[in-house]
């Protein structure tokens, strides 16, 4: 399963005076959706005695996120960290993750019996593009926006949220990739014993571009097709007509305006 470390976005605010981001006190967290992916992986581990392997790509500080995953019960962790991975868009990111997953599969040899679980999207970039791109690169079927799953010997049957009022039940063969929604489960908290274990024994294995035998033209900025041209803060759109007076006066005025605007 894949984890991304993200800034706690709901904390990010703009300083109205300087029109810049206020970053003080913003902690890095495991992307909330990835916690659901983790929880699902751990449930399947308990049910099917599966081994749960977590991967993350990011700077060395992303090790914290993986330590937390270990504390929750993940068996093994890999951190893909290298300056050469920096500046990656979703294409380059999915390529790097795919290289690492192929390496891990090669080493652990699960045959056909593996399932890749991702969160449906990350709260920072919020593209949701990495899971399908990863599935494509691995050449396995994908089912995105999953809110329920049943696993059997060599196949999965999942419920995919398709529209607000409709769920599609899809069956596919293993190996497969799913991306899960926030309503699939309630993620557990790490136990004290888990935390002790995560910091005492378990390892986070670092993989750099050499370890992955990566083609330099396909990773990081070089492997990215998209580039950021400009970053700006959203602007004010309209000047409001302010309604003043007693509640009655305000209500009357508003209704008149809305009548004029042909709302009523």
């Amino acid at each position: 399963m894949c984890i991304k470390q993200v800034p706690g976005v709901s904390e990010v605010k703009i300083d109205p005076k300087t029109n810049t981001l206020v970053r003080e006190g913003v902690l890095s967290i495991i992307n909330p959706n990835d916690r659901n992916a983790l929880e699902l992986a751990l449930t399947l581990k308990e049910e099917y005695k599966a081994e749960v392997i977590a991967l993350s790509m990011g700077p060395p500080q992303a090790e914290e996120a993986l330590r937390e995953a270990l504390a929750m019960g993940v068996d093994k962790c890999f951190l893909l960290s290298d300056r050469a991975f920096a500046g990656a868009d979703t294409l380059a990111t999915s390529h790097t993750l795919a290289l690492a997953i192929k390496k891990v599969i090669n080493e652990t040899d699960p045959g056909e019996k593996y399932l890749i679980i991702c969160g449906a999207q990350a709260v920072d970039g919020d593209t949701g593009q990495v899971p399908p791109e990863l599935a494509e690169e691995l050449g396995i079927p994908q089912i995105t926006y999953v809110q329920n799953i049943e696993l059997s010997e060599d196949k999965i049957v999942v419920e995919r949220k398709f529209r607000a009022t409709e769920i599609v039940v899809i069956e596919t063969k293993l190996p497969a990739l799913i991306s899960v929604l926030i309503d699939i489960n309630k993620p557990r908290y790490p136990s004290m014993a888990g935390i002790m274990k995560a910091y005492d024994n378990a390892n986070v294995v670092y993989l750099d571009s050499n370890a992955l035998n990566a083609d330099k033209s396909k990773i990081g900025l070089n492997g990215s097709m998209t580039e950021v041209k400009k970053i700006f803060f959203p602007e004010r759109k309209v000047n409001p007509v302010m309604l003043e007076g007693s509640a009655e006066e305000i209500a009357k005025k508003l209704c008149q305006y809305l009548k004029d605007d042909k709302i009523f």
Partner: protein
Amino acid sequence: MSIVIDEELCTGCASCMDSCMYDAIELKNNIATVLKDNCTLCKACIEICPEEAISLEREDVKIQKVDISQFKGVWVVAEHYKKKIQNVSLQLLNKGRELANLLQVNLSFLLLGTDFDDKLEELSLYGMDEIIYIKSPILKDYYSDLYTKVISELVLENKPEIILIGATPTGRDFAPRVAKRLNAGLTADCTGLEVNHATRDLLQTRPTYGGSIMATIRTPSSRPQMATVRAGIFNMPEKVKKRVNIRKIEYEFEEEDSVSKIVKVISKTKTSVNLEDAKIIVAGGRGVGSREGFRVIEELAEVLDAELGGSRITVELNWLDPDRQIGQTGKTVTPKLYIACGISGAIQHIVGMQNSEIVVAINKDSNAPIFNWAHYGIVGDLHEIIPVLIEEIKKIKVDE
């Protein structure tokens, strides 16, 4: 590869620091310095520097170049449900027409489905030059692998320069897969699309970091340029009568083309929540104060025959059901009237409702950012104003 700052040119103005979201630039002796460990090479600072003192130093890596001049034309991929083309696809045709005109190329509508033969004439009123209709019985439903196969093949054959797709659970499922297969740049959830005449680059603007920041993205050296857009971002097109070329292709799939099978479709007992199509929405925020406090908001919604919504915090506090959340992580809505009650107007919320036709904001705090987005503003206690407003509306409804 790294960001380098020319110390001779740097004036220490710090605009690069402000543009950096990763705390990767600091001033040392009044000269900007890059902290390599934090830098993600996003290049925001390069664009912002007024002195052009910042550049990217690349290693010499051979990157396969695509001859982008071969790619011409704008495509919109149709999304349909129960034989009806979804509004988001028609809205994209409207935007696609504008882009195609600027680039002086054709606009094509790519439709994968079955049973559309008798609908093509009606569809041809939406401004495209061409409909490419890929027909197969299995395309009645959506399958990621079949869509990916067909669209990738058609793109390789026809080489469009721009492909627009709805940012729906369907579009967001196949678009990345197609992008990967074609090694094409893809930008999710765009709220603005423009083209640069000279380079023919599609300038794709989207909210990022929970909507706190807008980023404009381009794909300078590769084609096609793919973008997904949510429903309601662009307007519906006017119907026009014009000659539309129809290319119908009967497509035959092989058994192994799809590993996945649809077992069944479960329709949930129709929830009454339909924010996306609502004409009027009454939404509450933290300022409503409590779950009980929402009753007055509900009552206002009732008299207006409106749908009820709220900001993220109201869902987190359990005052409101999650399917009523409006904003970056919730629904994007485009009603004729949006009444924001006790909503401060964090940008995460704004991105979900900014295309409402008329916005009324009621808030105690006259400095609340929501007033920057409102057409009518009321500074005051919503619990005093709304009950009076409800009575006033009732009177009007009786008069009618």
